[in-house]
């Protein structure tokens, strides 16, 4: 127990060090990447669980790096809020590996970028220093650019470059904001800042700094109209990568933004700052509406889900606005739960979309016709996840939206409450399109122009889509026995693990829906600390 404060640095250092292994071992052995990544991320998840068991029973765990005092040293802090995000990151990262073993992308360099990404994300969630946050944001971003660019087509390089330019400018904006705040206060530690900011002699500097930080995070979290990098990045990234970045990268940024609002600037100070609440609320609400409307008109499933992320993160940002404007504990609970819930839902949905693309090559909404009869389990899981995204109880999506809406009503911010209810209707509009195609439109073979031919990347075993399509559902029914019997199951583009992970995520989304109250209780000490 005494060494529990070593877990936070270990969570960050272990994946970054392990990131060198796939390349180093790859010089000698092929395909070591998956094993290294699995061992690391399973270990990280176990460490995160151990950390959570301490944090939720006996309060926050703090590690001071190098023993330097926090005025100029760096602290890693695991409290009730950050531990929840750490659990989400390690859990999703470990889960996605179940897909990538068969579904790809393969190759050792992918796993290097994957581990760097996980290290950066855990750094964002655990750091207690605003400049250190910038460094981890950039580590995460660089890994994400590389992952997006590892897609097959040349389009992925264009999408990655667009992301790189916008993402770098955004991170620089954040750094500029930090510079202004540092100028006014002379410290970078989050806890020190929270006392130094109200005491600052020049509030103008703090206001300028906050303005730059808001713009920076509006890009990073992909808020309308600064979201333009996000749909093409999600769409062009390899199928196995999209669940990872869609679920985690923007979530970690949104977490960091929330952390800055509640811990660094503090709610009372921002409430007194002119226009701060109004601006954050407006960004959030506009993104909710714009994101959903754009999602409804998309034809590609991955792109539709990407725009849906714009609107769901809009909800989180709007909730932050409610927290500032109404000092609402309920809205903050909602924001945290929705962050975790949305991360989980998008993992499942993008994994489902990747699975369908791997087996049928179906990428547009129309091509999903008749999926329910061909693949009842995947279609069922995706239906559960979509309903959860809409916010139908009992599911995690409902719990988050419920708390946010409740917070808005309690704070008497009626326009925000209206936007949240309207967004639920609009979410139903695009979710229903997909559901209708899957369940009520009969499949026609002609409508699948993208059906998978002999793809060159795998050395072209051309017969695999012939034998895989009809019998892969059988394989699920017979479970592992069938997979074992077939022996040469490597030809099947869809493995049991790939289907199992989608089902597990769907079940998890429903189970967490029942556990909503428990999560709120776990967060309670943190909430009472930051909101008085």
């Amino acid at each position, binding site marked *: 127990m005494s060494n529990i404060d070593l877990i936070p640095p270990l969570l960050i250092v272990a994946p970054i060090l392990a990131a060198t292994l796939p390349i180093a071992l790859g010089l000698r052995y092929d395909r070591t990447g998956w094993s290294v990544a699995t061992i690391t991320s399973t270990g990280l998840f176990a460490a995160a669980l151990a950390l959570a068991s301490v944090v939720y029973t006996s309060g926050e765990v703090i590690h001071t790096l190098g023993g330097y005092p926090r005025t*100029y040293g760096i602290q890693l802090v695991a409290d009730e809020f950050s531990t929840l995000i750490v659990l989400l990151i390690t859990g999703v990262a470990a889960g996605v590996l179940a897909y990538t073993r068969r579904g790809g992308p393969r190759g050792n360099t992918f796993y290097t970028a994957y581990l760097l990404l996980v290290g950066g994300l855990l750094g964002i969630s655990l750091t207690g220093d605003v*400049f250190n946050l*910038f*460094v981890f944001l*950039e580590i995460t*971003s*660089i890994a994400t*650019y*590389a992952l997006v*660019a590892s897609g097959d087509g*040349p*389009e992925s*390089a*264009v999408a*990655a*470059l667009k992301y*790189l*330019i916008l993402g*770098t*400018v955004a991170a*620089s904006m954040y*750094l*500029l904001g930090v*510079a202004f705040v*540092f*100028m006014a206060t002379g410290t*970078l530690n989050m806890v020190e800042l929270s006392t130094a900011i109200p005491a600052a002699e020049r509030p103008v500097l703090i206001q300028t700094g906050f303005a730059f930080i808001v713009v920076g995070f509006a890009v990073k979290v992909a808020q309308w109209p600064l979201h333009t990098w996000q749909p093409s990045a999600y769409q062009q990234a390899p199928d196995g990568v999209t669940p990872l970045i869609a679920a985690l990268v923007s979530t970690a940024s949104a977490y960091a933004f929330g952390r800055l609002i509640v811990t660094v600037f503090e709610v009372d100070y921002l409430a007194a700052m002119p226009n701060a609440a109004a601006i954050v609320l407006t960004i959030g609400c506009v993104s909710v509406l714009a994101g959903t409307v754009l999602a409804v008109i998309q034809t590609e499933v991955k792109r539709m889900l990407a725009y849906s992320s714009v609107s769901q993160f809009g909800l989180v940002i709007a909730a932050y606005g409610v927290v500032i404007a109404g000092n609402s504990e309920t809205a903050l609970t909602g924001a945290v739960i929705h962050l975790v819930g949305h991360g989980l839902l998008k993992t499942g949905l993008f994994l489902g979309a990747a699975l369908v693309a791997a087996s049928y090559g179906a990428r547009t909404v129309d091509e999903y016709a008749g999926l329910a009869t061909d693949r009842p389990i995947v279609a069922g899981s995706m239906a559960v996840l979509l309903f959860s995204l809409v916010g139908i109880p009992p599911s995690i999506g409902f719990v988050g939206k419920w708390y946010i809406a409740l917070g808005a009503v309690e704070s008497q911010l009626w326009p925000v409450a209206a936007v949240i209810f309207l967004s639920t209707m609009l979410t139903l509009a695009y979710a229903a399109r997909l559901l209708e195609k899957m369940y009520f439109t009969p499949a026609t073979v002609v409508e699948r122009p993208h059906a998978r031919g002999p793809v060159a990347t795998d050395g072209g075993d051309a017969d695999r889509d012939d034998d895989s399509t009809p019998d892969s559902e059988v394989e699920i029914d017979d479970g592992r026995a069938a997979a074992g019997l077939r022996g040469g199951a490597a030809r099947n583009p869809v493995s049991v693990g790939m289907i199992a992970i989608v089902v597990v995520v769907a079940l998890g989304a429903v189970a967490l829906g029942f556990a909503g109250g428990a999560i709120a209780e776990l967060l309670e000490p943190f909430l009472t600390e930051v909101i008085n």
Partner: protein
Amino acid sequence: MVTAAVSAQQIERWTTMIELLTSRYTYVLMFVLLGIGLYMIIASQNLVKKLIGVSLFQTSIFLFFVSMAYVEGGSAPIVPPESNPGELLVASPLPQVIVLTAIVVGIALTAVGLALVIRIYSEYGTLREDTLREVRADE
């Protein structure tokens, strides 16, 4: 009487402004650089020039940090060899350390960006954004 008071106030404002420009000219310079960088990112059609703009944008922020840390008459923040050096006036070391780290981050980003540009060039045979848009629209 009233006009005289206003003009006195105005003169005072102008002198503070001029004072600010002469003593804090690095800040002004930094925002000019920031603007140039942002303009290059938006207006330039050439992808490499866009990246140069990004780099310039970042560098201006580094300069901001460094000039913020400057203390008039202060020396470099190095621990002197004497055991008891007495009163020392040094520049703040923290922003300089920050800038060192940020420079490393910036280089990594530029490298990744240039690698992407090379890939785009080998795929599409162009570095211009407008040509790139046409080529992609044709496909």
